[in-house]
Every structure is written in C-alpha cells, then in structure tokens.
C-alpha cells in the first residue's frame, strides 16, 4: 500500500430492516483503495460484498436501509459520501465512481440500442455535440474489443452475446473516465473463456487509464489472478486482508485457508491441498446475518474453534506483515493448518 488512498471506508455498517428481522448485511467493514490499485473482495454469497459496493455508490434503497460509518473519496476532500445529498452523490456517480454488474444480460435497457445508451453515457457528465459523442462512443466500443462497432451501435442488447454485453457495459461505465470502478462479480455469469477475456480487458483498461478498481467475486482464482490486494469477507465483516502474495503464501484465517483449499487443483492457485481430482468444500453454510453468532462468526464452521473464539469481541489483528491483518484469535494455528479436513467438523 504505497499508493495514495483514493477511497477509504471506515467502520461501514449497513443494516436492512426486513420482515424477518434486521439483517446486518455489512457490519463494521473498513478498507482503503489506493490510486491505481486493484483490490479484490472475496467471500461466499451473502457475506455482504454486493451490499458494500452498493452502499459505497449510494445505491441501496432508501427505505429499510440504515447505514453508518464513513466513506471518503479523497479527490473530493474529506466529506463522507454516506451523508452527501442525493444530487451531489449523483454527480459523483458515473463521473468518478462507476459500477458494473453481475448479469450483463439485464443491466442494459432492452428497448434501446447499444449506441443510444453509450452516447447517453458519454454525454451524461460532459457537454458534447452529438457527432462528437457518437465518435467517442464508437471509440469506446473499439477500445473494449467489439468488432464492427459502427454496425453494433445500432443493435439492441438482445442481439449481443453475454460476453459482448459485458464489454458494452464496461464501455458505458468507462465513458466518463471514472477514477474508481466497482466491478461486482463481472464475470460470474460468463463462461470460463469469456471470463478470462473480460478480466484481461478490465486489467488492461485499468493499467491504461490508471483508475482504481474494486473487484468483487466469490471466485478466489479470479481474484488472485488480477488483484494487488485481497479483502476476504465473511458474515458481513472483513476477516482477512493483505497483499495477494501474502494471502496466498500465509493465509492466516481458517476461512481464507478453506477458500484456497476449495479451489480445484490446477486452477491457478499455488496452494493445493488434497490429491488431484478431489474437490474440497467448506462444511456448513454462512451464518444468518439476522442473528449472527456472538464472537467469531466463523466459529460454527471452524476446525480450530475454542470457547474463547465464541466469546471474543472480534477485531482485526496484525498478522506480522505490513498491511496483513486478520480477524482470528488463533492465527498462528491457522497458518499451520494443513489441508482442510472435511471430516473434522462435518
């Protein structure tokens, strides 16, 4: 973390009031994203990754959502984005902070042409003549690798394949040259080959423009491939964060360890437990965020759990190396943990 911070999130909490009770979707998340840094956020479904992104963007529904904490976008001074009036937040969105979504099939307006939507994105934050905007839109399509862009401008989203749509969405998101791109599972709904292309494209664009990126995924293989730094989330909290190399070499939280072990052999992760061909899963499922267990939230699934863990008011602890922090009392044991023993706690 040598770069200047671009975005800092401090003690972010987002609680959702539902019929079944209060969901503590994000519960005390803090992290920073440096200039031109790619940060990966990883965790199982339902651990607060998407809600974190949407809260940062101010896109959570106003009714039934309660947020506290601080989101600071440094180029704009020290103001808290969470308390920013809607109209100011609106100017920030798109122009400074952009977001791309999990399912490109539904993220574009089905009754308007790609070109129309792209031109709209280009002109939304900068005054431009129509001709100019159109040229820039075509340039963006070329940039994201869509062949025959002039013709494709006239196409409707249903005429695009999933990978092409994600490319078009990336073009739209980058239309106003944002400083920070939040990519919420951008490759999840695509097949593996297209996934790789989209990731390379995102990385290439990130390097060219010098923007920062938060890449959210439940796929650790994707994250390790692309990111400078990794944040592991579990149950609405950050359980481990550090440089990618550090996390892979010295996973210090049993959950991180389990995620690494869950990768299929040969999936690009250097750490491989178990013989070839055997897939490892983590027994149990993530806690309900309505009445999360007191103490460590991973305790019910943890092979190293002690009574202390269940009583512990959790906090992120230093894990030895610079910027490497972990929310685990028994991090030393966790580091020594061998391949995941499914039978131990199943």
């Amino acid at each position: 973390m040598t770069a200047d911070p671009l975005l800092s999130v401090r003690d972010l909490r987002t609680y959702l009031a539902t019929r079944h009770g209060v969901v503590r979707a994000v519960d005390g998340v803090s992290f920073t994203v440096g200039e031109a840094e790619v940060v990966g956020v990883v965790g199982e479904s339902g651990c607060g990754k998407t809600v974190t992104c949407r809260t940062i963007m101010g896109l959570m529904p106003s009714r039934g959502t309660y947020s506290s904490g601080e989101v600071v976008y440094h180029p704009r001074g020290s103001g808290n984005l969470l308390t920013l009036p809607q109209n100011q937040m609106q100017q920030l969105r798109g122009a400074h902070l952009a977001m791309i979504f999990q399912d490109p099939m539904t993220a574009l307006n089905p009754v308007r042409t790609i070109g129309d939507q792209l031109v709209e994105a280009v002109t939304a934050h900068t005054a431009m003549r129509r001709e100019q905007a159109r040229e820039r839109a075509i340039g963006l399509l070329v940039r994201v690798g869509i062949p025959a862009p002039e013709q494709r401008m006239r196409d409707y989203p249903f005429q695009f394949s999933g990978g092409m749509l994600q490319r078009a969405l990336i073009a739209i998101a980058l239309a106003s040259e944002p400083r920070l791109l939040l990519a919420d599972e951008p490759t999840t709904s695509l097949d593996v080959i297209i996934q790789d292309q989209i990731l390379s494209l995102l990385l290439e664009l990130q390097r060219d423009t010098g923007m920062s990126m938060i890449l959210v995924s439940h796929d650790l293989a994707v994250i390790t491939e692309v990111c400078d730094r990794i944040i592991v989330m579990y149950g609405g909290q950050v359980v481990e964060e550090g440089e990618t190399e550090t996390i892979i070499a010295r996973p210090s939280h049993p959950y991180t360890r389990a995620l690494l072990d869950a990768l299929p052999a040969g999936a690009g992760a250097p750490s491989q437990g178990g013989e070839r061909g055997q897939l490892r899963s983590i027994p149990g499922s993530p806690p309900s965020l309505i009445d999360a267990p007191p103490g460590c939230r991973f305790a019910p699934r943890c092979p190293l759990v002690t009574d202390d863990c269940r009583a512990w008011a959790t906090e992120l602890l230093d894990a030895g190396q610079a910027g490497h922090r972990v929310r685990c009392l028994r991090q030393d044991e966790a580091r020594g943990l061998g391949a995941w023993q499914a039978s131990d706690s199943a």
Partner: protein
Amino acid sequence: MNQTWTLHPSEALLKVAERTAKRSSSTGRRRLVLIAGLAMLGVAIIAFVGAPLLVGVSPIKLDVLHPLAPPLTGGHLLGTDQFGRDILSRILYGGRIDLAIAFGATSVTLVFGTIVGLVAGYFGGWVDNLLMRIVDLFFAFPFLVLIIAIIAMLGPSIFNMFVAIWITSWVSYARIMRAQTVVAKKQQYVLAARALGYSRLRVMFRHILPNTASAVIIFSMVDAIGNIILAASLGFLGLGAQPPSPEWGTMISDGQNYILSSWWIATLPGLAIVFVGVAFSLIGDGLADILRPGDR
C-alpha cells in the same frame, strides 16, 4: 437417366429455415397489421377533411323532397334521414367531430395519466399513496355517471365533453403505468442507470418509460375507440354534439325511431364507428409488435 432427386438433409433444413425467416421478417407480416390500420385511418382522415370536395351537399341542408330516401335514390348515395339530410355528408362531417374526440380526448389523458403513474410508481411511498388514492376516488364512481355529472354542471357541448373526458379518463393510464413502473424500477438496468449518475427524471423518462410505454400506448388505441363510442353515447343522450351538427352517436340516436322502416339512418354511421374502431385496434396491435424489439 433415371435419377431420383433428393435434397441433402442440410439443404432441406436450410430451405425450411429460409422459408420461416422470410415469413417472420420484421418488415413483413407483423408490420402489415400496422400498415393496414394506418391506411384505414388515413383514408378516413382524408375523407373527413376533404368532405366538402367529396360531397357537394352540406350536412345540414334539408332536401324536403326526399326525406327517408334509401341509398342510391333521390341523388343521395347513402340516402337521407327523416329531414332529407344527406347521410354520406353527415357521416363525413361527423367524422371530424368523432376523430377529434378520439385524438384530442385520448392524447391528453394518455400523457397526463402516464406521467402520474410514472411518478407514483417510481417514487413510491406517500407520493404513490396520495396519487393512487385520488385515482381510486375516480374509480369509485360509475364512469358514465361521473361524465354525465360533469357535463350537467358545465352544460352540454362538445368542448365540455372533452373536459369531462380529460378529468375522468386519465386514471386508467395512471394505474397501468404505475403497475408497469413498479415492476420496471426493480430491474437491473434501472440500477445500472442510477449507477451512472443519471438524474431521476432521466431514469424515469429515458429508461423506464421506453420499457413501459407500450402498455399505455396500446391501451390508448382501445381507449380512443372507447372515447368515440362514449361521444356517440353522449350524443345519443343529447349531452354531446347538439343538433343539427352531425355526429355519429346523434345520428344513430335519430335513426333508432326509423330502424325498421329506414335501416340506413342508424346503421351507416354505426358502420363508420366500426371502420374507425377497427383501424385503431389494428394500429394498436401493430404497435404492440413493434414496440417490443426483443420479441422479433
């Protein structure tokens, strides 16, 4: 040479597919419906506007020598009514009034109701509650009774009939639009549009409206027919166009006394209503196809 001609399977498949492609091409059949509807409406509009050129007789001129003349007699192509007024002339001039009602009354209620529904559905909360309770208020009364009450207050005239329709008819559009908007605003593309920093107005009118407008536009075609019939009903009741000005409903009302002896007086304006009604409903069907590009 005794050769049997059989197509290679791939060629046969190609042929079938090509035939289907030709049949379902977007420029073909589906647009035909819209074109037919527009053509019928176009013919009607030309005939109504060009009425003075097509028939030399004024719609209120009395031909006292030929009252109740059947079609093709007494120099009247479609006959005359009980006062000897030319039916063709009355239908064409009356069409002006009825089409004006179809367009004038419907367009205002379409636009107003759509905006109300869009605002209610998009903002939700108390805005939605307030607007929809007002809509409920209108639905609580029988439609025709409400219109008659308003006309009774303002006095019977064509303009007051417009006013009565404007006041009461927007509520259907508001309800349809609200329902569509509530569904549409949960779609990912709306979230994506907001993530790009688009203003509420832009999201509502440029992103939600294009996806939901087809429902109200198609309904407006049905409503236009409804308004013609409403105008005819009010004319029939003596609350719309006042005699001697020609209007289809009034003509049918006049003709009912002679329906057994002189069928043409009531039937021909009725057929005119049917003609215009079919035109509008064909346009509605055609638009329904074209406004949903994903179905093609």
